[in-house]
């Protein structure tokens, strides 16, 4: 490993520039009395004006863009942005521009997306083989079988089958909003067997909506993990009935989906921490203990940001006793 030199390259350039400027200024100041003695006022004035002009352009053309680019790199290193680092307004030089371009190819966000998809599959499989999940489901089936007979068992089994089939297949494709909603409704049907009328679900479309909205494309397994979060962290601990509402809003360029629950809500610190994590795309959550809350949110958020860019993703509103709203912002794609 090479020994790192003291100053960074840009800092050296600035240092040299400052030294040069001081020398020029000293020269200029010693030149002024001589020129004034000679009566060369115009020369002094034009020289002063030129220096001012050069300084001004150096500030606007060099210092400000440098400061902005440094800020973007700092935001990237702090985890605030990911793809944004490849869209610098002004690169440091042609070589760094080529290097960033190469870097973007090498990183290949597809690999990172694969990482998150694998994690999503992993979570889904975890749910499949999680005994707690299976026992509760089976317990529900058993109760229904005792009371109602074969038809209910068939219904539940069918719902479960549909759910597993959707969840673990074809993670590559974008799904339509219609398919995602159908998956959520299926999931709700399954949970209804367990929770009864404690859990309720409804969908709100915009008042004047185009029926084509439900054909909009979104990443697969975007909605169900969020709804699941709402049920287990919001509704389940709550006394009395709970309601999960899926609200859909559309603009010419965006699809805004809100999963709102009237559950127990979250502490302010927790909301703040989650929103901080959701701001950027990060894969560190994969190493975290699964018991840490918000992993589904982070997974969905990461997939959205890696696929579509930093300006899309998830934002959370919540307060203890006031429920939670999870707002998902996606580009409107057909």
């Amino acid at each position, binding site marked *: 490993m090479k020994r790192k030199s003291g100053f960074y390259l840009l800092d050296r350039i600035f240092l040299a520039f400052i030294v040069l400027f001081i020398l020029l200024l000293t020269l200029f100041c010693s030149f002024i009395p001589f020129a004034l003695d000679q009566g060369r006022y115009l020369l002094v004035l034009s020289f002063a004006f030129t220096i001012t002009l050069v300084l001004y352009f150096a500030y606007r053309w060099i210092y400000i863009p440098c400061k902005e680019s440094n800020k973007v790199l700092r935001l990237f290193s702090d985890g605030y942005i990911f793809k944004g680092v490849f869209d610098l307004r002004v690169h440091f030089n042609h070589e760094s521009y080529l290097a960033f371009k190469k870097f973007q190819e090498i990183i290949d966000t597809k690999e990172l997306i694969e990482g998150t998809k694998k994690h999503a599959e992993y979570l889904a499989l975890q749910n499949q083989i999680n005994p707690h999940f299976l026992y509760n489901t089976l317990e529900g089936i058993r109760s229904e079988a005792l009371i109602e007979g074969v038809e209910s068992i068939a219904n539940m089994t069918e719902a479960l089958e549909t759910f597993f089939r959707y969840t673990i297949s074809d993670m590559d494709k974008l799904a339509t909003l219609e398919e995602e909603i159908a998956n959520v409704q299926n999931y709700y049907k399954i949970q209804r067997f367990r929770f009864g009328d404690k859990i309720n679900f409804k969908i709100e479309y915009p008042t004047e909506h185009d029926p084509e909205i439900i054909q909009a494309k979104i990443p697969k397994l975007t909605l169900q993990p969020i709804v699941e979060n709402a049920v287990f962290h919001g509704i389940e601990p709550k006394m009395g009935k709970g309601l999960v509402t899926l609200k859909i*809003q559309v*603009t010419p360029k965006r699809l805004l989906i809100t999963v709102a629950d009237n559950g127990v809500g979250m502490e302010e610190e927790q909301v703040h921490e989650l929103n901080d994590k959701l701001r950027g795309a990060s894969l560190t959550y994969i190493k975290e203990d699964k018991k840490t809350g918000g992993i589904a949110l982070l997974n969905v958020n990461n997939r959205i940001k890696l696929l579509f860019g930093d300006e899309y993703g998830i934002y959370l509103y919540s307060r203890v006793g006031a429920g939670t709203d999870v707002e998902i912002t996606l580009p409107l794609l057909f």
Partner: protein
Amino acid sequence: MKEEILRVENVIRKINGITYLNNITFQIFKGEIMGLLPLDNHGKSQLIELIIQNVPVHFGRVYFDDQLVNYYEHSSMTRNRVYLIDKETNLIQDLKVADNICVLNHTFSDYIIHEKKLQRVAAGLFQQLGIELDTDQYVSELSLLEKTIVELVRAVLNGAQLIILNELSNFLSIEELAFFQRLLRYYTQKGISFLYIANHHEEAFQICHRVMLFEKGKIIKIIAEKDFSDEILQPYILSFGRHQVTNGQHNQTGVLKCQDLWTENLKGLSFSAKKGECITILDMNNRGIQDIAAIINGFRQPESGRIVVGGKEISLAPGRNLFLDGVAYIPENPVQESLFFDISYLENLTFMLERKLKRSIIPRRVLWGIKEEYRSLVGDEIEAEDLWGLEMRSLYNLVYLRLLFYKPKVVFIMQPFSHADMYLRRRIIELINMVKAKGIAVIILAVSISDTLSITDRLLIMEDGKLVSSGQRLADLPAYVANQPQ
């Protein structure tokens, strides 16, 4: 399909190391009235500034009319097509209405000003709204409502796509506000959006399509119109409780009597107040209470009438000091208007002490005694050498503690909850209760009921300068008042 006029995404704004906007995300659609309910005032002015102009942000993005206008890498400092309307008007007082609307407008390109043409254009705009306003009038001659309407029309003509309305109920009366809100609904149909900043959710719920709650520089909840209810806000707001109204049977002696006061805006105003009683005068037109304040401050003499304080008739000649007669006045913005920031806390508290004690030099031991007495109430703030480092709550404490110190017989308070966030309003209620407990009569001059029902013993409603109803319970009041924000 709704179109966004403004989208603010994950914006963090820090100034001198203090985070004023903390990862905020929201959008406003075209033709929408979006409410903003600040639970505290932290970050509010910084948010307004960000919407109006593309100032530097630490992180995040701002889209205006679907264009990315500001983001973490580059802030152009350009202004968006946003107009702010608040109590401090942007109109030029010495110009006429037509000039303010048409000439002071970036779309105006004529080289020669044809006054009659401008007046025709301006009159046409008001006609569309069904308003009769003389466009040949100077702005300084207009009422607050008229000025606000002129600003609205000017904003629309200027091409503003988003108009920010900052706490209108602080300076418009109930009737005026209802009228102005009708104009807002008219313009939303033309595709203009509004950000309606209100101090009370009832006011916002009356007019807005959605309301967002803002606290500590964060948006903590966005509520859609169909979800508007008191229950949904309960986890977020403080309850001030309802004051136990005494049915007018106050067991104290009378301390103030205003008899038959006549001015341009007061038509024979008469009322009385007892020791420790709190009366709210709700002015439906926002004119009469301005005259009352002017009389109390000695700026104006009534055409006729008298004021009796503690059994003694006081002189109402302009320029006299009612403080010596036991009458105090707290203005609408008391921190800015009645405190001296460059002198110490103790000096602010005791600066009129020589008049009270009728001595020109106050002994040090007296000042020391006062300091120790008030240390138990305000702690080490009593040692502050100036007021610059104190929080708003501490400054309001000082304003009201001065009353407790000087113990006037009666205090007139103009709009006590104006500019105060939810937490500060609760503190102001506590302070006014302390003043009442000392036997000082409190007369609140207000244009909206606001939180006054939490402290008032009697509510007097004034319309066109006359008292029209002196209901002692909310049920006694006319419906249009009872339904107003409380």
